[in-house]
């Protein structure tokens, strides 16, 4: 905890708090979840970085989308993302959420996930190894530091368009809009 760390803490405690205490939603969206257990257990301890699996999205501020996203899982991902409290970050694992990966032509998988929910960080690799995950976490730190990890603000401002895309892919959604219409245009 050298001097500029303390200076940073005093200047922007919120940012530093988010950096060193990333609680990830414990939701296995795709095949990548098999990489998470070694990350959080004794071989590659993620708790050193303050990363913990959070039992419910209400307590989390990091959402790891691990692996391909099928149409059915997208509905659950959107619901979970909307249930997380406001400053929240999402990280996409592997190539499938980026552009569909090897399921690029499949009728049943979502190709570009960031059409439906904002993604702050990507990790390449068809299931990245734990070291890659930690590099991603450190990158997320720099993003947060520079204030570029603004996925949730983008979601709030363009919620109408996101909602449209979601309903194009999934048909009518049962739950009401997260942000009422008036937030949209002002």
């Amino acid at each position, binding site marked *: 905890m050298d001097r500029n760390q303390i200076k940073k803490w005093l200047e922007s405690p919120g940012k530093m708090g988010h950096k060193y205490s990333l609680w990830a939603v414990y939701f296995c969206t795709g095949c990548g979840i098999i990489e998470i257990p070694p990350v959080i257990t004794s071989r590659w301890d993620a708790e050193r970085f303050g990363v913990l699996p959070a039992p419910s*999205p*209400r307590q989390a501020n990091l959402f790891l989308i691990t692996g391909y996203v099928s149409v059915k899982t997208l*509905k*659950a991902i959107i*619901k979970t993302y909307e*249930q997380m*409290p*406001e400053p929240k970050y999402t990280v996409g694992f592997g190539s499938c959420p980026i552009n569909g990966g090897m399921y690029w032509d499949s009728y049943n998988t979502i190709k570009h996930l960031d059409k439906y929910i904002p993604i702050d960080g990507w990790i390449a690799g068809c299931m990245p190894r734990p070291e890659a995950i930690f590099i991603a976490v450190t990158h997320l730190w720099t993003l947060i530091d520079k204030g570029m990890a603004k996925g949730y603000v983008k979601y709030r401002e363009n919620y109408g368009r996101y909602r449209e895309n979601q309903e194009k892919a999934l048909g009518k959604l049962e*739950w009401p809009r997260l942000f009422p219409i008036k937030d949209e245009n002002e």
Partner: protein
Amino acid sequence: MLIQSILIIAFGGAFLTYILGKASSALRDFLAVLISVSLTVLIFLAYGKTGEIAFASFMNLPLVLRINHLSWFFAIAIQTVTTLSVIFSLSYMKGKERVDFYYLMMLLCNSAMLGIVLSGDFVSFYIFWEIMSWSAFLLISYNRGGALYAGMKYIVMSIIGSMCMLIGIMSLYSTYGTLNIREIHDLISTASGEYLLFISILFLAAFGVKSALWPIHVWLPPAHSEAPSPFSAVLSSILIKMGIYGFVLILYVISGAALYLGLGGGSFRYILTLLAAITIIIPTFNALMQDDAKRLLAWSSIAQIGYIILGISIGTSLGLIGGLFHFFNHVAFKALLFLAVGAIEYRTGTRDLNSLGGLIKKMPVTFIAVLAGTFGLIGIPLTNGFVSKWLIYKTLILNNHPFLAFAALVGTWGTILYSYKLIHNIFLGQLPENLEHTKPAPASMKLPFIILSVVIVLFGILPGIPLKLINLITASLGFDLLNINIWGIASESGPLNIINIFAAFAVALIVVWFFFLISGKKVVISQDNSYAAGIDVPKGKYHYTVDFYNPMFRMIKPYFRDYMDEFYSQLVKALASLSDRVRRLYCGDLGVYVIYIVLFLSILVISKIGLNLW
């Protein structure tokens, strides 16, 4: 002169409302409320008066009316509860049939209770006691169907009780020639220990049945859940307290503190406190297992009666004050809880704890009422329940009764569990679809809620007000005065000082609330935005209340089944089969009867001549 006017108005008013009811229901409702309110005012005026008037004579026995602090204390409690439940039943009884009969019985029962408390001799006491029992019976079986069985059970047990009392009264009359309570009090000191024990057991049997002491409590749960809600509020908060009045009457007014302690060589007191301790434990665990709100409250009434009797039968001044104060508190929060459950039943049509939920959004005032009631029931600091329970615990511990103190403390935690079950299953959690459009409780129901909640909190923070009066009562019963300040009792070993607790808690609450407000914004969301593992909240299936403490049930079910109930039903079956056999003797044809006569005569002859027995 005041006492006679009170009773005349009460009885006259009851019959007047019945007659006027034939004319127009609005007039009847207005009259019922007018009478109750005027009686409350009259009794209020009678504060501090003591006196005795012989108002009539029955077979050259003077019927005497008597008022002192003790009877005033009980009278004001009776009258306030009846007034509030009459106001409550204005809207509750709107659509139902036979409402005139209901009001008649309600006011009759109220006036009978006033009569009991104001009576100065045992004959009038017994007359009013019978009127009360019968009017309560007619009201319990008001809803026909299951209520008849409950009423039958109630009336059979209370008849047995009043028979014992009658024997007691007759033996008193035969030994002392008078039935005036004051005269008996002077003469009783000369009585032998065994006679006093015999009289006490007889009277306490009657009062035990009425106040649902543990072995003779079986009539209470069905009676309370079958009676119409306004009356079950009166029944459970006041009617069973007549037994408590009886206890105090016999143990302290008649025999006096010294005699009571020496009764049966001190063993009588020990047995009574043990019974009271059992009355706390077993009904509390039974209340945990109930799924019907009113049955749960009925079982909790029995448990709280255990506390009161424990306080009274300990025999110390602090215990008596604690017992009487707990009686007053229990009247407040039990009436509140039963009226609130009545309001919920009135609005949602059901009181089954497994199918209600989420009503806090629809009936907020009722929620606040139930919250205040349960906080008082549990005895959370800053409610009146805390002060009275604290007094009872203090005497138990200082007089070295650790096992009774254990029963009382475990009872408190049991109370927490079943009262939280009441709050959670009715008000918290998901609002089921069929309750989507329940309207809040009507205004005439909200008035009793507010009054009783204020009473609970006010006497919790300033316990000095009622304690001063109770102090006078215990002084009149032969105990020494305790110095009571407005905030609590400043007795020597470890004073109870509400002001410290109140101030500490208020400051902590303000600090935490301020810290809560400044620490960031919050987003208010509705109930169907709850976390359901990624899917939308499944409507109607997402509310967990069905047998709320299931793991606990499986553990304690075999031990806390109501053995006494089973024992009594076996007893009744045995009696029925016995009487059935006796019935077969009369088989109807003449020849058999002739044989009986001849047989009997021959036995007579043989015993006279052969064995010359007499």
